[in-house]
């Protein structure tokens, strides 16, 4: 009857550990994408798909541990939300990888695309640092602010990129649509990571 109150904090520790793993998988997938853009090796795309599958397993582990009673019920909705956002980001990376198997990025857009992908990776790294700060119980406002700054920079870059996209000629409708979807996904990733940073702030506030 009372074991929840007086026994170990195993469930809570497991949830935090798995959340960290989830974030690391996201960073790893982002790096694979950067490597693909640098070298064009499609094996990296396959790796992203694999990472996304691993991410699904981690997500399920977290949800089942929360269901077993980890953390206050008051905190669980935000933890669920955080995990779902990271999972959605991994899904988005997988979709992007699948798209890249069918489209070719025009050379005049490659540099900017690479720059956005690198910034996305750095943004995820910053999110991991923010998460570590949260776990340590320190103030994470500056970390979350850094995540937002990354997002702003990516938005600015995308704005320039968009102007140039309109001047690129495409072979057929499907090539054009694929390219449009690819760039939408590229920039949506940073929005999702920013959302994850906000939810982390909410979690921190919930405990204060």
């Amino acid at each position, binding site marked *: 009857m*009372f074991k929840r109150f007086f026994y170990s904090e195993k469930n809570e520790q497991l949830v935090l550990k798995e959340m960290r793993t989830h974030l690391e998988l996201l960073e790893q997938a982002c790096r694979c994408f950067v490597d693909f853009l640098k070298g064009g090796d499609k094996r990296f795309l396959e790796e992203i798909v694999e990472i996304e599958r691993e991410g699904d397993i981690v997500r399920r582990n977290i949800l089942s541990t929360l269901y077993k009673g980890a953390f206050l019920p008051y905190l669980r909705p935000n933890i669920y939300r955080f995990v779902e956002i990271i999972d959605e980001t991994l899904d988005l990376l997988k979709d992007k990888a699948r798209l890249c198997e069918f489209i070719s990025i025009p050379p005049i857009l490659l540099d900017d695309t690479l720059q956005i992908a690198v910034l996305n990776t750095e943004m995820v790294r910053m999110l991991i640092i923010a998460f570590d700060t*949260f776990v340590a119980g320190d103030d994470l406002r500056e970390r979350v602010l850094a995540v937002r700054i990354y997002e702003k920079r990516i938005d600015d870059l995308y704005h320039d990129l968009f102007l140039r996209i309109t001047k690129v000629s495409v072979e057929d409708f499907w090539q054009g649509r694929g390219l449009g979807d690819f760039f939408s996904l590229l920039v949506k990733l940073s929005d999702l990571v920013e959302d994850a940073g906000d939810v982390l702030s909410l979690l921190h506030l919930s405990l*204060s």
Partner: protein
Amino acid sequence: MAKEWLLSSGILMGWSLGANDSANVFGTGVASGLVGYRTAIFVAAVFVLLGSIIEGEKCMGSLGALTALSHSEAFFAMLSSGLTMTIFTLLALPASTSQAIVGALMGIAVYHGNPDFSALGKFLTCWVLTPIGGIICSVALYKPLKTLVMKGIRSPIARNRVFLVGILITGSYGAYSLGSNNVANVTGVYVTSGLISPFWGLLIGGVSIAAGVLTYSRKTMMTVGKSIVPLDPFSGLLAVFSESLVLHVFTQVGIPVSSSQAIVGGVLGVGIARDIRTVNFRVMGKIFCGWIITPVISGSLAWIAVFMENAFKGGRIMEWLNFLWYRFPTSGVETYLFVPPLVMFIASSITATGGISGAFLLLPFQVSVLKYTSPGASATNFIYNIVAIPGGVYRYIRDGKFSWTLFLSLMIGTLPGVFFGYWMRIVYLPDPKRFKFFVGCVLLYLGLRTIWSAIGEFRTAGGRPKQVKGRITKENFGLRSAVVFENQTYVFSSLGVMIVALFVGVIGGAYGIGGGALMAPYLISVLELPVYIVSGAALCSTWVTSILGAIIYAIGPLSGPSTQTSPDWLLGALFGLGGFLGTYFGAWLQKYLPSSWIKTALGIVIVYIAIRYVWPMISGLIS
């Protein structure tokens, strides 16, 4: 009145207090899922009992300072407080048990002409200070505790644990304080009146509060808890802690106060500490109104109760009411004209909330209270049914839920049965001792069935059957009859129904009931007919059987002045009038009362009456 019965109003009050106020200590934890319901009620019950026994005595004497009470006045004080709390609960107004009891005691003091307003001043000050104390505690503790938790405990896992264990500790402390402070509200007046010793007062009070926590606190915990839950865990914890602290402080002062107002103060204090704009001043206004209205109503009720008691005791009321004294010529019963309708109004109001006909309790009343034991009593029972039932039958016919085929099958079986019952009553059961044994057997069956039905409701969490709007569209009468209801065909053996109805008719004919209530379980459980079809037909069959039963008793071949079989039409009509109004009132009241608990209580009372009727015959056989 026996000593044990005088305690009943206090025990009921304690039970209600436990069921309601435990929400103030564990509502947050249970509604948010932090603490399991079973864990919460177990911990709360244990700590309430501990609080009552260890520190409850500190508040016991304070109520005695308001007025000296006789044993029966103590009972009326608790009854008036209980009634006031029920009225306020039905009207969804905030009320405090402590204020109701103090109001009742002052009402009695005013009646005696010796109210001590200086002692009342102490209570009034404490009532005002209760929510204010909650506010002060929360405001004072908010920042220091917040700093302690935020700076001292940084890791989210550790904070999570602090809140988790904190809710259990503050809840336990709250339950302890509730028991120590509020036990005086339950048995304080009995102790000061000398009815029971302080030890028994603490024990009975503590156990009755704990019983309320254990048996009926889930609903209030969820309702009250959900209104506090939007607070973050720290604020919720602090509000409960402030409430517990305030209750404990007032225990040391020796004044029982309201736990609900203490928690409201605690929550308001948290709001003020964070931002004064979050405070709802309307809630404060309601509490203020409660300080005045609760004691005034409770005091008035207590005044009326004691006035009536003394008026009856001195015989003055009886003198005034002498013009209503009447001797019913047929039965020879002598009583006030308002007694038969009043008794059946009360009895039917209660039995209708539990879904039972008042006719079952009418016969014991005639036999044991009015001493009307001749066969005419059974016939008078029939008259009650004739007057009380038509409204219900009309409703079933209007709603298209009346099955003619089932009604016919019941009638064909019941009518000869009633005649046999009449014969049995006159030939074999004219002797009151034998007749009482027969009545006891019928009541025993009914009582056990009522308890069984209540157990069923407890198992299904008291869920009420949903209202079905369908109508009977087609019927076919034969050896195997068919009824089409809500596009579903129900087939039953008419012959089988007639045979069972014949036996039921014999019992009903002798007892003075139509037998519908005895038939219904067979039709629903064995033939698996829907309750919507059965109720209308059974009720109408009871009505028609009662008419014919009354006629048979009046002019049957065995009837005559020597056998005293003729029904007392006026007495029966007066009973029926009360029953008719009581059934409607009970049906309305049913929405507000837990039917499973009423059924349990009714079942126990019926079984008790049955045993009293059956036992003399059995003990005679044994000896």
